[in-house]
């Protein structure tokens, strides 16, 4: 099964790599580990309204003049852009979705207060690597995998942005 692959950027700066495949009225959409089956039910009773079904629940999607999507008149989503990504033969969609293995990225904007590991050290999955202070609170970043700390990219006291690579574990 060859799935189509897109990179979706929301207005809020979140990027998702999403794979999808259409079979008749049902789209299979893969976001990260999650797989959703979206059934297209057709036009709604209002202009610019479309109906979908996920897990037996019906959702109405409405498009505003500025492109804002409004769901069930409650939730909304504003997309920045959708970029189609070419899928080469032999490349696994799963790998493209998950990103490079072993890179520990900062989940937030803050300042590194304490690094608890050294380069060359072996770490277990879930072991605390470092703490980042943001908004008066310390967040402990734990290792996502077991392995050896290859490189520490930050120093204590350094400010980090969301998405910055902190540590590489192999």
């Amino acid at each position, binding site marked *: 099964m060859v799935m189509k692959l897109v990179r979706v950027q929301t207005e809020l700066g979140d990027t998702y790599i999403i794979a999808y495949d259409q079979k008749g009225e049902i789209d299979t959409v893969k976001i990260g580990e999650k797989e959703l089956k979206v059934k297209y039910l057709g036009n709604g009773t209002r202009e*610019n309204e*479309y109906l979908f079904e996920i897990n037996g629940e019906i959702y109405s999607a409405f*498009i505003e003049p500025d*492109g804002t999507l409004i769901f069930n008149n409650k939730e*909304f989503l504003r997309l920045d852009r959708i970029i189609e990504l070419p899928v080469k033969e032999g490349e696994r969609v799963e790998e493209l979705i998950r990103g490079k293995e072993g890179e520990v990225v900062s989940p937030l904007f803050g300042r590194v207060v304490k690094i608890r590991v050294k380069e060359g050290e072996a770490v277990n999955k879930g072991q605390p690597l470092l703490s980042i202070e943001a908004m008066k609170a310390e967040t402990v970043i734990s290792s996502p995998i077991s392995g050896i700390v290859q490189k520490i990219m930050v120093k204590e006291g350094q400010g980090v942005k969301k998405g910055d690579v902190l540590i590489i574990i192999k």
Partner: protein
Amino acid sequence: MPPFSKVLVANRGEIAIRVMKAIKEMGMKAVAVYSDADKYAPHVKYADEAYWIGPPPALESYLNIERIIDAALKAHADAIHPGYGFLSENPKFAEAVEKAGITFIGPSAEVMNKIKDKLEGKMIARKAGVPTSPGPLKPIESVDEALKVAEEIGYPVMLKAAGGGAGVGIIRVDNPNELAEAFEKSKRLSYSAFGRAEIYIEKAAIKPKHIETQLIGDKYGNYVVAFERECTIQRRNQKLIEEAPSPSINWEERKEIIEASIRFGKEISYFTLGTMEFVFSPVTREFYFLEINKRVQVEHTVTELITGIDLVKLQIRLAAGEYLPFSQEDLKIRGHAIQFRINAEDPLNNFTPQSGYITYYKEPTGPGIRVDSGVELGTWVPPYYDPLISKLIVYGQSRDYAIQVGLRALNDYKIGGVKTTIPLYKLILQDPEFWEGTFTTAYISEKMDYFMTKLREEEERKLAIAISMYNRGLLKRKKEETQKPVVKNKNNWKTYGITLQSSPRVLW
């Protein structure tokens, strides 16, 4: 007669606008101050006059006493309202304002200096017979001493920074093994935030709830308490949802804390608005006094809705030296109010503050809804200040009704451009534990995993539908059939001629 002619509001955002509304209603002129980051902010536009006070960092602008007083003198303001946060509880500021011949809307520097920190507040509370938590009234020097004190009063205990505020440096310790590390951490946090490392210990309440009373006093020793607010829904000791009256206490207990609050006010000759914060245990039915906030609170709105008092106007009048216009017996609780703090924070990412332009903005309206907002479409939310951008306050004849209004209003409130706490509040309002009112201050931290799963599911569902629409080419809105205006010919004979000429039939 308005008590002043021109009032400067030394604050920004939502509260600056709220205070200016009161100033305008009283027939006075409102003066704003702004930093470079707030050049185009709504509070600057809303004021009658506005003065620049410095670059974006708060230390150089909204915390710059000299610049603010300069602005007040330039504007010929005869009073300054500090709002909350920033300089509102700084006795040096109150003193500088008084020295410049301007009235400070709040308690005097002399009153503020009577309680310099939390520990001193606790001492006064004990003296005034206000219920406090067991624990010594002095800072703890070492881990050994901490262990000894904790053993005496019994676990769980709380470590607190004496010079602290806004919940910084507060750590709960459940057993002796955790104490040493927590002690160092609390010390470090306290020192980096306030430049003081004094820590004290007190007994922690079981299943704690946060309840506070609204103390109101004039300069002549008259006091009333506009009942209580419950602010139990917090994360990291920062309040998120507040309501009044508290669903957890009965009238006897309410009377007890009202009387205790008045005794505390009398003890220090407090005047204008103050908030007495207590932690309440629904298990032992005990109140422990925490601290007194010497300013108008973020959550003053819920008290306004259930009592019908405009607290900000009253605060201005009391600061001007007027007498309290009513007594405790005049005050009644009517209905129930809930406030939601709309923060520009990402609930999925450890509540990281967000910054950006507001690209989409729909405010809820209708029965039982009040919005105190500091933003509008196109406003920039700067990263330098508090992430609170707006407050949604809902009112109903009972708590159940208020919750219904709340969910509807949150569904109607749509803010684009920055992530907000709105989606989280919608989930809380659908939680039976919230309906019953049995939650404690640990509610958010205990339930956050569940809420995050729910929020992520919602996000994925929205994305999946968007992709499905993209795949089917539905993301573009259909071209609207614009209603063509009826073209009115000046002369109807012209139409007659044209139809005749275009007619294929030749009549002659």
